[in-house]
């Protein structure tokens, strides 16, 4: 559906996006995951024909984005990172305007507007001015709007940025429902690990304009080849020594009387550790096992953590608008 070839964009001497290559299958939900400033939005802007690549290109549904941008625009829907609705108009008017701008035949457009309003559950709010909408409702309407002209591909740039956790869960539910109901390919950018994990079939982890890993979230985490186990016990030292001797853990760290282990196949390892502890006469107080998260994956590849930022992602009027403060 989408084929990205050596896509590159420089801003002056800064290489924002550096020779990206990847392909997205039809109907797939594909995620670009990375910290702020990694080049996600720049990549998306090039795919949406808003920005011209410095070199390289992308083919969307057989059409080259650099050769026929206007043809591409008809096939894609975009939900921008920043708000982009007219808040002096009603929800329905915003949707109608979009249908008109994209040349959707008016009878069909009317039907379609009802459909998308239903999908994002805003039917009863459609006649209200957008300025009375909450941040999450605005986002939902923007998603609905992006779907009106039956796009083949929907681009979502940080779909839940600046929203509270509960609203975020809601938006996720809509996006999941959408990918099931409409046969549509979706590309979303995010710097929320959980978002990529929950929604995306495949994730490209991107840092400093380069893809550093690309796979399903499951396999990326499996690629860590292990689970995270922590053990609290009385004589941790003894236990640690024994485990090292046996050479059955990938890594082992001891902090405040607690052992942090990375092990292959944690499920099988837990009883084994218990056995070993018992044979040493070490009493285990507590033990927990968790699977690695994409955060661990990112940390593994870059040595840094993705900074999860809170409030100040928006500036000036955009911030006021997104938060719905008047």
């Amino acid at each position: 559906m989408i084929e990205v070839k050596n896509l590159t964009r420089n801003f002056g001497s800064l290489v924002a996006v550096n020779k990206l290559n990847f392909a997205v299958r039809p109907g797939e939900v594909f995620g670009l995951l990375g910290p702020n400033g990694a080049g996600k939005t720049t990549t998306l802007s090039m795919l949406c024909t808003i920005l011209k690549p410095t070199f390289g290109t992308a083919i969307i549904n057989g059409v080259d984005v650099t050769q026929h941008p206007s043809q591409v625009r008809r096939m894609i829907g975009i939900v921008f990172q920043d708000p982009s609705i007219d808040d002096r108009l009603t929800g329905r008017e915003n949707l109608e305007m979009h249908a008109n701008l994209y040349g959707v035949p008016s009878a069909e457009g009317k039907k379609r507007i009802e459909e998308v309003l239903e999908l994002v559950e805003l039917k009863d709010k459609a006649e209200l001015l957008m300025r009375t909408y909450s941040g999450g409702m605005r986002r939902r309407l923007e998603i609905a709007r992006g779907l009106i002209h039956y796009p083949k591909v929907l681009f979502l740039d940080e779909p839940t940025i600046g929203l509270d956790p509960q609203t975020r869960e809601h938006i996720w539910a809509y996006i999941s429902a959408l990918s099931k109901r409409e046969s549509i390919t979706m590309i979303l950018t995010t710097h929320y690990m959980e978002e990529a994990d929950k929604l995306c079939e495949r994730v490209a982890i991107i840092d400093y304009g380069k893809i550093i890993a690309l796979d399903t979230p499951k396999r990326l985490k499996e690629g860590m080849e292990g689970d995270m186990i922590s053990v609290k016990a009385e004589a941790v030292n003894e236990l640690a020594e024994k485990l090292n001797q046996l050479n059955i853990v990938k890594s082992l760290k001891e902090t405040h009387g607690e052992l942090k282990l990375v092990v292959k196949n944690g499920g099988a390892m837990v009883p084994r550790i218990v056995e070993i502890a018992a044979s040493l006469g070490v009493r285990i107080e507590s033990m927990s096992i968790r699977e690695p998260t994409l955060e661990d994956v990112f940390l593994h590849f870059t040595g840094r953590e993705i900074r999860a930022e809170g409030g100040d992602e928006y500036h000036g009027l955009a911030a006021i608008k997104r938060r719905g403060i008047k």
Partner: protein
Amino acid sequence: MSELRGIYTLWLREVKRYTREKTRLISSFIQPLLWLIIFGSGMRFASTGLAGIDYQKFIFPGIVGQTLLFTSMFMGISVIWDREFGFLKEILVAPISRVSVFVGKMLGGSTDAVIQGSFVFLFSFLVAIHVGIDTFLLSLPIMLLITFGMVSVGLTIASLMESLESFGVIQTFVNLPLFFLSGALFPLSYFPQWLRWVSVVDPLTYGVDALRITILKGAWISIQPLYYDLLALVVFDLAMILVGTLIFGRTR
């Protein structure tokens, strides 16, 4: 066809937004009233040198012109507003040309400005001018011709501006000279020769003259024939639309 529909859509949006802003509608009544009543009656000692036309009657078409000028220029703000609030992106990625976006916005702004200018006609009784429906209908195309160019100028300036503040400052620099030089407030014959030359390049000069011809009728001795005024306005409009689409086309 889809371009026409795009233009219509953007026109409709501008008009809807405008008519929903009650404060702007109400305030649009105030300014012309101040000029006509306070300024106009205070200046009544001034002779217009024309039989049957006192000063208040004389400035009435000028105040229509001024309202059109100020409102039209102000319409440029919609570009800055849209950019600030992100809506411009939605329009710019839509599959319609930049020329259509500009023309749609321009027509919308013109419609708003002409509605505002039309309100001034409601006050014609205050200065004892009889404005029939025929006079109003004749004035309508003149008002449109004035606003097409002026809104284009406003949109063009706004496309070049980074912020609301700088737009406001530049506007004053453009508005006041155009207003004063147009002869809206005083007969151009009172100007020294060099200023008269400057007023020749002011498009509003032709607009105000054309409005005086239609509103004051025979009592007004026109500076140039009506068709000449209209031709000047058309040339101005076309030039400004051309410049506007070129400059707006480069915006991100």
